[in-house]
C-alpha cells in the first residue's frame, strides 16, 4: 500500500508509524471542500495503522462543522475497533472550535504530540 500522504493546495496530509500508533498530521484547511480527501485519508490511515491514532491539528487554519463531525466519527470508529484516537490541538486559532463544541471533555486532546504519544502508549496512565 502506498503511503497515505495526500496533498492539495489548501490541505497537506502526512502519516508515520510510531510503534503501534499511527501519527497523522493535517495542515491547512479542513472544510467541506476538502471533506472527501480528509475522509479518504482517515480511511487509509485506519487500514494502514489500525485504530490507535494520534492526529496532529496544530497547523490547521480552518476547521468547519462538517470536518469536526468527521473527526468525531473517526474518534468513534477508533473506539469501536478497540483503539483510541487522540488529538493534538490548542485552545486558540482554528482548533478553538473543538472547545466551543464541548468535545474536549469527551475526546482526548493534548497540546503537544509527545504528550499525545505518551498517553497513547500507556493509556491507563493518562
Amino acid at each position: 500500500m502506498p503511503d497515505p500522504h495526500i496533498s492539495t493546495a489548501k490541505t497537506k496530509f502526512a502519516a508515520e508509524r510510531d510503534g503501534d500508533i499511527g501519527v497523522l498530521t493535517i495542515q491547512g484547511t479542513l472544510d467541506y471542500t476538502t471533506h472527501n480527501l480528509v475522509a479518504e485519508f482517515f480511511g487509509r490511515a485506519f487500514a494502514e495503522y489500525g485504530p490507535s491514532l494520534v492526529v496532529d491539528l496544530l497547523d490547521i487554519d480552518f476547521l468547519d462543522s462538517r470536518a469536526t463531525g468527521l473527526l468525531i466519527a473517526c474518534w468513534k470508529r477508533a473506539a469501536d475497533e478497540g483503539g483510541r484516537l487522540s488529538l493534538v490541538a490548542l485552545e486558540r486559532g482554528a482548533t478553538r472550535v473543538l472547545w466551543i463544541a464541548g468535545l474536549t471533555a469527551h475526546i482526548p486532546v493534548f497540546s503537544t504530540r509527545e504528550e499525545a504519544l505518551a498517553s497513547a502508549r500507556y493509556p491507563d496512565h493518562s
Partner: protein
Amino acid sequence: MGGGDDISRSTPIAVSSGGVDPSRDSDLARRLETRLAHTERLGNLGWARWGIGDGDADWSDQLYVIHRMDPADGPLDLERYRTIVHRDDLPVFDDAMAVLEEEDGPHEFEFRIRAGGAARLIVARAETIRDAAGSLVEVHAVLQDITDWRRTADQLAVVSQRLEEESQLTARLQDIILPVQDEPFTVPGLRVATRYDPAETAPLGGDWFQAIRMDNDEALLAVGDVAGHGLAAASAMAKLRHAITGLAFAHHEPDQILVALNRLLRRMRPDVLATAVVAHYRSTDRVLTWCHAGHPPMLLVRGDGVERLHHPGVLLGVFEDVEYTCASIRLEPDDLLLMFTDGLIERPGRDLFEGLDALSATITQTVRAAPRDRLSAIMNGLVPSNTSDDTCILVARVTPNTLEVS
C-alpha cells in the same frame, strides 16, 4: 494530442535573398493545408463555393463529413442542396438566397438539413461574388454543423431553468420553515430583532432562531445551527425548532431542552450534528438562564461595553448520554443580548474569539455613536464574515420600563 504537433509548431516564414526556394514553398503550402484541415475538423465547419445558374460547386473535405457524403460523389450544387434542407426551414433558406441576390453579405442564417438519415443543424455565413454588371455569379459560404453545440446549449438552458425554479422553491421553503420578521417584535420584557442571511451558494440552510412568549413574563430565546445545507439540513433544523418550542411550553429549562434535543437527533437524525444556545428570560427579575451546546458565545452589551456570555456544553447529535448545566445572569434595563451563528464571526485562518473581538469592537463603535434606536443600529451594523455559510442573528433589548414585581 500527437496529431496536433505539426500545427502547433510555428511555421517558419522566411524570404531568402537569393530568390524563392520551391521546396520551401510547397512545404509552406502543405503546412497551411494541414492547418486548414485541422481547423475545419475542430470547428466542424467547411467551405463551399457555388456558381449561380450553372450547377458549378466546390466543397472542402469537411463539408462531405458534415453532410455524410462521399467526396467521390462530388459536391451538391445549390439546386440539389436545397433538396436536403428540412422542409420547415426552406423559407429561411430561400429568404437567405433572396437576400444574397440583393446584398453582398456576409449574411448569416441557420437551417436544418437531412444528412445520413439524421437532422443536422447548420449555420451558414455566406457572401457573394458579382460580375461587372452587378449580377450574382457565385456564393461563397462557410457552413458549420452546430447540432451538438446547440443540443448542449439547450440542455444547459433546461438545467439552468430547473436550478432557478429550485432556488425559488427553496427560498419559499426557507420562509415557511423559518419565517423572518423584518420589524422588531416584543416578547415579555424584551424587544427582539432577528435576521437570516442565507449562504451565497445555498438558499436553504440549517441556521435557525426562535423567540417566543411563554406567558406574561417569560420568554424563550434560541439560536442554532445544523451542519450542512440543503433539504437535509433544513428538515433537521425544522425538527429542532419545533421541538424546542414544544419543550419550552412544557416548562423545560434550557439544560433539559438540550438533553431532549440531543436525544431527538440521536434517534431521528443520527446523520446530523447541530449546535444551539437556548435561553429562558424572566422579565419579573430580569434573570436570563442559558445553556450552550457546542455553540459560540453570546454577547452582552451594557452601556458601551461588550462581554461574552459562554457556558460551554457539548454539541448536539454526537453522544448518546449528555448533560448540560445552566448559567444565569441578571440583566439591566437597556442591556442588549446578541445570539448568532458562526457565519457572523467565522473566517478561514482566524480564531473564533478574534472574530468575536472584532464583532465586539464594531458594536462598541455603534453604541458610542448614541443611536436613537440601539437595537436596529446594532443589527444594521452586523455583517456576516463568512458569506459561504448562512448566518442567523437575534438581538434582544431589555425593555427599560419593565416593572419589577416585589
